């Protein structure tokens, strides 16, 4: 007559303070043999089988489908069948406490429908969670969803997480057909939402903007550019790729209870020319020359327009750059793609102020403002180093609007004055015309 083995909930991963019992192999009082699998646990990552260490009679103190704290006793093996039955009386005090503890950990059976908060719904939609995962709950908050998904470091505490499945989305905003006309989302748009939701929906992103002095930046740069003269995109991709090696946090993503750092830098650039918004990958960007990058952009853009993109052109992008400079924007807030922690936005060059805004949105769960600010400042400095600081204007092209004399023909040592002509245009005027002889 003896208690031969006590089975406690094992500590299998630091983040799992509770485990789910997924299988109770035998009925209470069943005779079992050493080596029999008597219980199966599930962690957030794997399953774990518990084997009997001795022959005996099993008494379960748990139920399948429920969570138990680490170190809690969930089963016992006794030498005789009789003990199994007596056990609850013999250890009444203990058992009551255990049962109460168990009660705290189980979600009560709720047979009614489930009420979701707006935030919970939003997250469920964006993560494509099957709502049946919440069956048996009266209310579901965002936190409940996060707990289920293991977001924010909260382990899967309460119920087993079914896999993410692509179920048809349900409109959460009310629709009154008498007042609105519904246009179904295109599959491209849906995919876009899918890609942007995971990071943005947490609300834990922020954007930092810096300006780059672009005065004279293309004087030398254009000489190196083959296809994209007067475009900053290639050089920004070139410099960003190199900088990301120094700032690995921007070349990674948030996993829910940790941060994944990509081993390689694959900068992607966003294009949207009538074929839907896509991000195209320049693999191993940090190793490529400016010319390589330009070639790659050209080739990828061609494939995009020809619709001959390969899956590898679109996957494993570790950081994204989106260029809206051709749209004349002053600055904007780019949105981070799924499994990225940052995105860089390029705004148009302001010709009057001779500057351009760079905006970096980042996932605050992975990095923080100060680091990103340093990253952006360094990037701006690198770009500004391309400026032809002492550059000389082509003197032939500067002509006095009044007397048509070119600066090259000017004999004085004062130069011309930038002015507004009587027609309201910008122009130059020579000293003679301005002051008189």
């Amino acid at each position, binding site marked *: 007559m003896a208690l031969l083995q006590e089975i406690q909930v094992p500590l299998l991963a630091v983040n799992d303070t509770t485990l789910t019992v997924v299988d109770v192999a035998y009925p209470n009082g069943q005779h079992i043999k050493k080596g029999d699998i008597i219980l199966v646990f599930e962690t957030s990552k794997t399953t774990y089988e518990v084997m009997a260490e001795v022959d005996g009679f099993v008494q379960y103190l748990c139920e399948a489908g429920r969570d138990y704290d680490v170190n809690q006793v969930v089963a016992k093996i006794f030498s005789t069948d009789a003990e199994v039955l007596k056990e609850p009386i013999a250890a009444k005090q203990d058992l009551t406490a255990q049962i109460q503890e168990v009660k705290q950990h189980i979600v009560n059976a709720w047979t*009614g429908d489930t009420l*979701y908060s*707006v935030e919970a719904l939003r997250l469920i939609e964006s993560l494509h969670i099957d709502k049946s995962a919440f069956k048996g709950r*009266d*209310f579901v*908050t965002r936190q409940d969803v996060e707990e289920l998904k293991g977001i924010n470091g909260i382990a899967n505490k309460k119920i087993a997480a079914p896999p993410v499945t692509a179920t048809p989305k349900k409109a959460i905003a009310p629709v009154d057909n008498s007042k609105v006309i519904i246009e179904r989302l295109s599959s491209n748009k849906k995919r876009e939402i899918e890609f942007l939701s995971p990071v943005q929906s947490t609300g834990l992103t922020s954007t930092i903007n810096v300006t780059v002095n672009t005065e004279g930046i293309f004087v030398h740069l254009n000489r190196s550019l083959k296809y994209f003269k007067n475009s900053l995109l290639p050089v920004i991709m070139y410099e960003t790729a190199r900088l990301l090696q120094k700032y690995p946090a921007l070349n990674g993503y948030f996993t829910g209870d940790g941060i994944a750092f990509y081993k390689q830098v694959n900068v992607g650039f966003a294009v949207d020319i009538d074929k839907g918004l896509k991000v195209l990958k320049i693999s191993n960007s940090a190793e490529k020359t400016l010319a390589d990058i330009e070639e790659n952009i050209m080739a990828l853009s061609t494939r995009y327009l020809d619709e001959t993109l390969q899956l590898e052109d679109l996957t494993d992008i570790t950081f994204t750059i989106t260029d809206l400079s051709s749209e004349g924007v002053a600055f904007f807030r780019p949105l981070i793609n799924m499994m990225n922690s940052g995105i860089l936005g390029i705004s148009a060059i302001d010709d009057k102020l001779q500057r351009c805004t760079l905006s970096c949105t980042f996932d605050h769960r992975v990095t923080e403002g100060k680091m990103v600010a340093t990253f952006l400042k360094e990037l701006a400095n690198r770009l500004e180093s391309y400026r032809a600081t002492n550059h000389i204007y082509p003197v032939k092209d500067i002509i006095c609007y009044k007397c048509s004399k070119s600066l090259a023909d000017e004999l004085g040592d004062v130069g011309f004055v930038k002015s507004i002509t009587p027609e309201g245009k910008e122009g130059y005027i020579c000293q003679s015309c301005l002051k008189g002889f």
Partner: protein
Amino acid sequence: MQSVSKTISHRIIKEAIRIRRVEEKFLELFSSGKLNGTVHTCVGQEFSAVAFAGQLKKKDFIFSNHRCHGHYIAFTGDIRGLLAELLGKASGVSGGIGSSQHLCNKNFYSNGIQGGIVPVAAGYALGNKLRGDDSIGIVFIGDGTLGEGALYETMNIISKWEIPLLIVCENNLYAQSTPQHINLAGDIVSRATAFGIETFEGDTWDPEFLINKAQGAIDYVRSSKKPGFFLVNTYRLNAHSKGDDDRAKEEVESYRNKDFLNIFSKESADYYNRYLEAINREIDELVDEILLESELPFENYYQHKEIVSDNNWSALESINKRQVELLNKFFRDKIVADDRTVFLGEDILSPYGGAFKVTKELSVLRPERVFSTPISESAITGISNGLALNGFKPLGEIMFGDFMTLAFDQIVNHASKFHHMFNKKINCPVVIRTPMGGRRGYGPTHSQTLDKFLVGIDNVKTVALNTFFDPAIIYESIFCEEHPVLVIENKTDYGKRILSNKHSHFLYERNDDAYPVARVRPAVSDPTITIVAYGGMADEMLSMLEAIFMETDLKPELIVPSLISQLPIDIITESAMATGRLLVIEEGSGYAGIGSELLASVAERVEGPIKMKRIAAYPVPIPAVKSLEHAVLPEKQRIVKEIKEIFG
């Protein structure tokens, strides 16, 4: 010097001398520092006391004022109790709590508030009349009290309702220090005549005449069962209180020379001195004895009681009846079954049955117990107080909660204090009901929730009805109360059915307290925010719970106290400690409100941080226009927004 009557009984003269000597003794004791507080002596006015208080029967009653010692001695003969009271001893008539102005013994009551005692006395007399006995009452006022509105509200009612009360106005020509010609317009007696009250007049310089006239007035009130008004012209020979006398010496001197006892002391010095000596000996012996006595121990006066709420929760069921129907049914049952029940209020007679129909048909069931009053909130409340002191269970209705301010003196200075200031000799189980709350477009003076002004009144319970359970549960407890209760009903709740909007995701429960706490919790989840609301706001919150959850991502637990003058802090603290968030919503404005009290009390008890927030009406009068009224009172959008901002 004029000569005094030789036919007046020496028993009466001795009584007057005794009163005067006691008063003079008080002044001596005050000068020697043995009296705490103040005294107002009636030296010069003694025969008024003897004429009225001395000629009442034991079953009659007296309400007196700040200058009450003479009345007390003449009515009760209890010099010892009076001396001990003013010397602050436990054996004093009010245990030393009341002192000079607050005496209570054998149907004698006094209070230091001018005018307020008149409706109380009227209520007491009404009680006697309802019982059908022939006892009457006298209320003493001074000419200074002629400035108080409560007096005229009451004169109107006692005349109209034929209440056997004799108002004795002791006209000593001064209101404290102010001579009458500065303060008083018109004629005194005409005031009573105008209300159709029989009037009488006499003076203290002819005691024999006064005594006979007083007896006549008493007999008139007793036999006719109608009120009377007696003007006694008199003069106090000492200051209003002690040293505060700015009257011309010549004037005072002329009245000293005219004073009966002064003349008697000279004309019949032998008698006078013999009486004086005996009375002095009596008083001195009493004082020597009393000075050795002990004072009331504090614990006999007040003991703190910790709030312990009941923790047995039972499920609440919907009742397919409007709150007003349930109230009306309860009152119908009570007015028939409970002989103590009396209803008073404006427009409460059938067929009208009150502005909100709560008292509908009560006057059909028992006409003699339902009094439709003039627009006189102070008198309604005061008469209710008097009925309560006389063993009845009066339910005064103030038509709109905003009008409670007009009844405030009666609640604060009378109802709330009687029990304690008379050293727990009497109880005042008065009930004042009033509807508060907006959302009906009644505008600034008919919409406000003034509960915060009421819950601060000590020893008065303030109860707020709600639509979570049958209001009869609360009123049944109120009928068992021995002390004042104010009941805040709610205009919009009257028409609502009990718990009509049950949502399957929540559990609806109440505990077993006399004034139950209702609770609404998520069916199985642990709540993540504690919301406290009461009265009409509770029903508003009930309909919002689902939306609050959806929009704020928090699982709400709603706690609804009904006894708001003693909040169930234990229950609320426990819940807030579990959720970490505490929100209190009130329909009145927030500054120094019930929410402030609640959060402070919880903060004193909790361990660990709890995020707290009050949401209340904005501190402006409630507009009549719908959109602005909606904006001023706590409404859904604002509540959701604030929850998100504070607790998000």
